[in-house]
């Protein structure tokens, strides 16, 4: 028996588990695999906090403004205020858990990251996510042994248990034994981004399949800003996926160029003289798309001028990775890079307290639409997961009404997973409409193709869910008739104040999808 059921054991889930356990609230931590396999271990570059250890007069206010501006004012300013305000304390907490951040002589070292003028990103070389996860997993182990956190690795989310718009628990299957159990309690979803909607095309893990988001959408949970997919500017194609080259490569001095008239053209430096290669990711990715469309050929990331110390102390793992996968030494040879899907700013719609539209159902981490608006700044993802998990847990402990109901075994029917062939077909249709540059024509064509695919045969539960989620993504992109952050419409190339709103997708019990736009909350003085 447990008070809270957490779905997902990455940074957000672990952060929530620790927060609850400290207050003696028990939780079941459910994940397909152990935390060591969570996508959080892939985070590389660092975590943002206005620690101001580099003598640049950085402030929380600067971090707040950069995050809002980077997200092109689509994030809830109250939520961003909370996030950035607590960032220094979160990084200090991690330091006290024994995370070996890179240090100056006396304090945590910070580096430059995109969309921010000041050094604000704390890091452990270029494996920051892995190093933080190790410390946090150790911390959670303490509470596991005390019986406050019960781990259920190799367990799969089946669906929410709902009674009259009230979440009473979640149905879970043990992947090893196939046994199914209805877990009863408050539910917190920390299930990550929707990589599995684009198999092989993202930098994320195969475990974040998108099925949780698709299923809860079908069950009535509202989703927000589904059109906001982050294309990371610097990824390389490796067997089976896109592999990220951390933004830290540019933070430490890496430069992007393309060949024009037989010469290297450092286009970002020419077009954006202030932030140069460190413009927000949406801007860099779009510029790369445009210059490649104009000139053809590949874009290269030139790290050959980086000082020796950067390779030794800050990016050693990155060099190993590039050597391994491309057989190219980035110290001496520029690396060809392309944009790749990296992060989902959109997802489960929550309020500033991480509540969803369903009572007793909460969400945190990449699965939510929170903090990042129309474009996430590098270094804010781990922060969003850690803070979001904590905030959700705090909301639960302060407001939820805990009942002690026993879990029940379930012996009814379980639906089969979606077929890999259909998953690929949906992905191809989505990619044709949701590229870096979009327009009405492509989106309508994609919607028609999706409709035809939907009519082709009778699909299973999870297949239907994916088709519904895909349709909602395309409709959100079609309805947002403006360009903002990661969503660029060549037929509406400017941003439009009318659309400075969250695109909300809802699925009715009859499985009809409706998109509406909800105004961004005003900033409260007490936030």
């Amino acid at each position: 028996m447990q008070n809270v059921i957490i779905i997902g054991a990455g940074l957000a889930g672990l952060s929530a588990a620790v927060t609850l356990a400290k207050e003696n609230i028990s939780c079941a931590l459910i994940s397909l695999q152990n935390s060591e396999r969570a996508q959080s271990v892939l985070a590389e570059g660092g975590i943002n906090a206005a620690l101001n250890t580099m003598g640049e007069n950085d402030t929380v206010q600067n971090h707040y403004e950069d995050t809002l501006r980077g997200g092109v004012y689509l994030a809830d300013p109250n939520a961003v205020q909370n996030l950035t305000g607590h960032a220094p304390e979160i990084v200090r907490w991690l330091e006290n858990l024994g995370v070996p951040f890179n240090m100056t002589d006396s304090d945590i070292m910070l580096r430059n990251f995109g969309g921010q003028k000041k050094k604000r990103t704390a890091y452990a070389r270029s494996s920051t996510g892995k190093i933080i996860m190790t410390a946090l997993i150790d911390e959670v182990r303490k509470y596991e042994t005390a019986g406050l956190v019960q781990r259920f690795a190799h367990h799969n989310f089946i669906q929410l248990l709902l009674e009259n718009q009230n979440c009473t628990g979640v149905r879970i299957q043990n992947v090893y034994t196939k046994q199914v159990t209805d877990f009863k309690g408050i539910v917190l979803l920390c299930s990550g981004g929707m990589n599995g909607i684009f198999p092989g095309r993202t930098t994320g893990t195969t475990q974040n399949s998108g099925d949780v988001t698709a299923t809860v959408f079908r069950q009535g949970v509202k989703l927000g800003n589904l059109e906001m997919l982050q294309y990371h500017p610097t990824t390389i194609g490796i067997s089976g996926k896109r592999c990220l080259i951390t933004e830290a490569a540019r933070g430490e001095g890496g430069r992007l160029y393309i060949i024009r008239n037989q010469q290297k053209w450092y286009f970002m430096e020419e077009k954006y003289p202030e932030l140069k290669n460190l413009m927000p990711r949406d801007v860099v990715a779009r510029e790369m798309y445009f210059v490649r469309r104009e000139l053809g050929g590949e874009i290269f990331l030139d790290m050959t001028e980086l000082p020796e110390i950067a390779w030794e102390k800050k990016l050693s793992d990155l060099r190993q990775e590039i050597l391994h996968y491309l057989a190219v030494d980035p110290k001496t040879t520029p690396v060809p890079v392309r944009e790749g899907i990296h992060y989902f700013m959109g997802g489960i719609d929550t309020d500033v307290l991480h509540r969803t539209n369903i009572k007793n159902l909460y969400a945190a981490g990449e699965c939510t639409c929170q903090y990042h608006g129309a474009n996430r700044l590098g270094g804010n993802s781990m922060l969003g997961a850690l803070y979001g998990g904590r905030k959700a847990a705090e909301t639960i402990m302060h407001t939820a009404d805990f009942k002690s109901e026993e879990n029940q075994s379930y012996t009814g029917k379980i639906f089969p997973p979606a077929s890999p062939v259909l998953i690929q077909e949906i992905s191809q249709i989505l990619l044709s409409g949701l590229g870096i540059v979009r327009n009405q024509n492509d989106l309508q064509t994609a919607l028609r193709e999706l409709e035809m695919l939907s009519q082709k045969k009778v699909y299973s539960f999870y297949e239907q869910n994916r088709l519904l989620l895909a349709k909602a993504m395309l409709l959100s992109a079609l309805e947002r008739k403006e360009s903002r952050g990661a969503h660029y419409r060549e037929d509406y190339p400017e941003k439009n104040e009318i659309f400075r709103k969250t695109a909300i997708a809802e699925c009715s019990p009859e499985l009809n999808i409706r998109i509406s736009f909800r105004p961004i909350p005003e900033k409260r003085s007490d936030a």
Partner: protein
Amino acid sequence: MISLNLEILRRNSPEESPVWKSYAYQTEDENANIAAALTDLNQTLENPVRWECSCLQKKCGACAMIINHRPRLACDVPLKEFVRAGSVKLEPLRKFPVIADLIVDRSILFQNLKTMQLWFAEEAKTNGSQTAYEASRCLQCGCCLEICPNFYAGGEFAGMAAMTLTARLLTALPESQKKEIFKAYRKHIYEGCGKSLACRDVCPAGIEIDKLLVHSNAVAVWKRKYRHEK
């Protein structure tokens, strides 16, 4: 074009006797690895091969299995290696109970970490320690345990997967924990390790296990002052 046979030791459940099955596989991708081959192959099989994977870039340790008699990560092994031989053998790790096909239950690995009480009981700063960094990179994949002549599931020896995590703690261990952790270290690591160091050769993360082991022995067993480099 790469063309070879994937020989896979298959069973549908722990109770079934395993059977070798052979699958012809071809791909245009010269850089394809075992993980990509399994993903492709499964698209064509009515009874897909069960295996675990997650990151596909050797950062999560999920896809550890025995590949031609050696514990490795499927995403770390290019098919090119086996083109001349014409085939490659895939088996589940042997030190852990098999669930199905290539999936094993590595719970014992995590149970050992709990038994040793590996955590900081109070706040502890590692101050950017390189040793703590190196130790934190451990994937908990189990390859080192698989190759180890001294480790078996259920034994006292917890193996190098537990040593790495202890090594991080030892860089900043609070006074209050020293007695217990040192004792656990001696019992579950020091006394069981025969120093074959096969673990170092197979570690997919390339962790310098021998160095960490020397450091950790010095602190936890010989009580030498731990002067880790900054």
